[in-house]
């Protein structure tokens, strides 16, 4: 139907924007506006709040001077950085060996070990804290292992944070280890390099970017996490809990804003170093690379398998402890089993409604978030025009990674509860929780979408354009189906995180929108630790079921839409 005349103009003519271009630009503006409203403006308001006194009068850096002259406050910086670094070293080491076992050994049951290691992603970070109290608290059944040390404090925080960050580090390191050129190993072997030397000169260097990336991800997760130190931190003050104490305990919003800004600094710092390092990474796999295939080595494989088994045992023990404690009538004095801790309606924290709210919120987050994120990524990657706007958007999309959930939530109070704000109406509703959660987890979802989109040739767009098809038709009929695995991945990522997040929502939930993860926090806070464990396990089962459903749907979709990948 189309005679495409491709006459090349002699001089540079600015092409006239077609109607399709305008539609596309309208979309870009909308998506860009989302990130401005949900991220940039609230953060700006919060920043300015830190320079105001209680009555909203600008007082310059007075709050900061007060902060840095109060040892109880600024000591938390050192504490936060210390536990983050310790956790970083331990998690990366443990995850590296585990990833090594999964990629470089021929041990059996790799699929099982891979799934089990991912479990911590499915639970709120408070849950390992609660589990550790049952294991190592004053009445803990494994208390003797601590030789009189107390679990409340840095020790407990680090153990629980290692549990919580392990899968995140593992995923990154596994990817790094799985791309490796077998020819290097052959060369090294031919040169008679001893095994340890090969490890130091080939394996580690080729995985270094993954290791650095994993280290920074763990650091950021720990320094911004609020659940673990709240539950098991004892007197060990950290920044994330300080924000909560200032805002909820003392209703000192200005100081809460100051602590938030202080917490932003190390997180942003870690983020930028990581970005810089990643930029240096060049393709390690040339076209001629030969994928590395591990060779069976019964001794080594057995060692790796017992190591992996040990890690899985720890993960399962912590979870099983929580489940058992949730069923015990009165720990430790009456160990008979019963279901009374599931009677959430009699507890503070929102009852069973909060559980259903959470599911609802997670579904909305997955639906809205996936749409916004994927469309946004499409505009950045395949959009036409607005080059600067797209660069700015890309920058904004990367920012949430460095913004702690508590900081985002607190900034939402300031921004959305202002009666002059036209978006004030979402305050106190489910919508603000969805917006906050989508924004909080934006970056990883965005990166997933970008990766998938980058794999699609730009030719598709050119062809559709020359066929005079509007971009959205192309988007819906070709791009979305082709990228469906990534889209499903984003949806499940958002769902699972929406179920477990506490920090992003703890300041902005309302009575009608109480959430299960916050109920865990509040029940623990009130000392109802068994019901807290019970609710935490409900979140785990829900997420596990969602993951399972995701696996089934992906399989089906793959058959339907990805047949072209196989020839």
């Amino acid at each position: 139907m189309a005679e495409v005349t491709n006459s090349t103009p002699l001089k540079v003519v600015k092409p006239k924007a077609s109607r399709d271009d305008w539609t596309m630009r309208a979309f870009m503006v909308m998506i860009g506006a989302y990130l401005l409203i949900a991220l940039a403006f609230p953060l700006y308001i919060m920043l300015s709040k830190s320079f105001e006194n209680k009555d909203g009068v600008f007082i310059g850096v007075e709050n900061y001077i007060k902060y840095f002259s109060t040892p109880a406050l600024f000591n938390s910086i050192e504490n936060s950085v210390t536990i983050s670094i310790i956790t970083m070293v331990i998690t990366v080491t443990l995850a590296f060996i585990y990833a090594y076992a999964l990629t470089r050994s021929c041990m059996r049951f790799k699929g099982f070990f891979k799934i089990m290691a991912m479990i911590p992603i499915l639970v709120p970070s408070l849950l390992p804290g609660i589990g550790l109290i049952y294991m190592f608290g004053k009445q803990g059944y494994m208390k003797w292992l601590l030789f009189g040390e107390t679990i409340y404090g840095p020790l407990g925080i680090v153990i629980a944070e290692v549990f919580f960050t392990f899968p995140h580090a593992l995923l990154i390191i596994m990817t790094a280890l799985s791309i490796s050129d077998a020819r290097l190993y052959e060369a090294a072997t031919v040169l008679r390099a001893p095994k340890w030397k090969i490890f130091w000169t080939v394996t580690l260097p080729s995985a270094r970017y993954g290791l650095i990336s994993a280290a920074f991800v763990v650091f950021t997760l720990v320094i911004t996490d609020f659940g673990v130190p709240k539950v098991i931190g004892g007197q060990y003050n950290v920044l994330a809990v300080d924000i909560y104490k200032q805002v909820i305990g003392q209703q000192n919003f200005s100081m809460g804003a100051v602590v938030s800004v202080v917490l932003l600094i190390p997180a942003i710092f870690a983020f930028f170093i990581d970005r810089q390092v990643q930029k240096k990474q060049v393709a390690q796999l040339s076209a001629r690379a030969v994928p590395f295939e591990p060779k069976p080595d019964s001794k080594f494989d057995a060692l790796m398998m017992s190591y992996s088994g040990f890690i899985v045992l720890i993960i399962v023990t912590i979870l099983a402890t929580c489940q058992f404690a949730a069923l015990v009538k009165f720990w430790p004095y009456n160990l008979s089993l019963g279901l009374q801790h599931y009677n959430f309606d009699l507890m503070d924290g929102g009852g069973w409604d909060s559980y259903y709210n959470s599911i609802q919120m997670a579904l909305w987050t997955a639906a809205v978030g996936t749409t916004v994120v994927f469309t946004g990524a499409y505009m950045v990657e395949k959009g036409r025009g607005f080059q600067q706007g797209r660069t700015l958007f890309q920058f904004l999309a990367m920012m949430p990674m460095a913004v702690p959930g508590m900081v985002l939530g607190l900034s939402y109070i300031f921004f959305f509860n202002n009666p002059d704000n036209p978006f004030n109406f979402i305050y106190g509703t489910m919508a603000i929780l969805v917006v906050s959660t989508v924004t909080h987890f934006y970056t990883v979802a965005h990166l997933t979408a970008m990766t998938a989109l980058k794999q699609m040739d730009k030719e598709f767009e050119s062809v559709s354009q020359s066929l005079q098809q509007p971009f959205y038709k192309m988007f819906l009929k070709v791009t979305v189906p082709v990228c469906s695995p990534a889209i499903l991945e984003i949806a499940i990522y958002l769902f699972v995180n929406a179920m477990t997040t506490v920090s992003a929502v703890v300041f902005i939930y309302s009575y009608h929108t109480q959430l299960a993860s916050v109920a865990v926090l509040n029940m623990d806070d009130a000392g109802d630790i068994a019901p807290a464990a019970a609710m935490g396990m409900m979140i785990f089962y829900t997420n596990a079921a969602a993951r399972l459903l995701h696996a089934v749907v992906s399989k089906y979709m793959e058959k339907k839409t990805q047949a072209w990948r196989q020839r």
Partner: protein
Amino acid sequence: MKKAFSTKLLGGVATTLAAIGFLTGSVSAEDLTVYTAVEAEDLKRYAAAFNEVHPDITVNWVRDSTGVVTAKLLAEKDNPQADVVWGLAGSSLLLMKKEDMFETYAPAGVDQLDSRFRDNSDAPVWAGMDAWVAAVCVNTVEAEANNLPMPTSWADLTKPEYKGHVAMPNPGSSGTGFLDVASWLQMFGEEDGWAFMDDLHENISHYTHSGSKPCKQAAAGEVSIGISFAFRAAKSKNQGAPLEIVMPSEGVGWEMEAAAIVKGTKKLDAAKKLMDFIVSKPAMEHYNQGYAVVAMPGISKPIENYPANITDSMIAMDFEWSANNRDAILAEWTDRYDSKSEPKN
């Protein structure tokens, strides 16, 4: 002026939108949004009792811990979402009274209340409901296992044998914690009060973020002695925890639960009806099911496992003083005890 108008307009639009809005229930004229920190299990009972008198007014509870509710109310100061506060710590209400956040109203029959439980100023805004009294929970099993004698006074708790066996709420994050600190300062005087806390600090195993946690932890044996409040202690004991509830001989601090109408509510009439009910005898009888001391004299019935003669232990608290010195007290407390990073064993 212009700003005020635009604020109102936006507020109006916002309210309308919120009403038809996203996943929220619709709000009719006879709905009251009531903020509270009362225990979840008592709320339905309270609302039902009110509806026996006023079936036409629906109470929509917004419940959270004292700190969260207070923070929420303060954060929403310029755009209040609540119509009435029913069941929040008196000290929080005083804090907000200073910020001029409440409607002046003396509920019908408020003069029936004990004078300590009513706002005696010329422009009264709040009315008391019941008292929430400090108490010490001792786990008898753990006390025996650790050879701890039963303490009878606050001074006892500073003895070296209790080292590492006492938990108390952090006043920086818990209203109960602040009530304890304020009461010691009032009971012993400032100098001796801080000296007492210095000694007590040596014995503290950990500070918690909530007032009920020390007692629940004592109930579970996670700590031997928890400084908490009597209401929680009695509840845990009723659930079968091996607890002994000690009312220290020097006397104990207390705090009231109180109510007030939020300034700017569009449902003032309904709110006033609710306030009248809040101080009425039937309401007091409901408070009495959980709390031994209620605002109206002469109606309290004893509660199982609640320490007897609790009113004798209650010291004369100066709430205005506590509210006015709150920031300074918290700063001093944090400086003395919260800056130590390492937990002590």
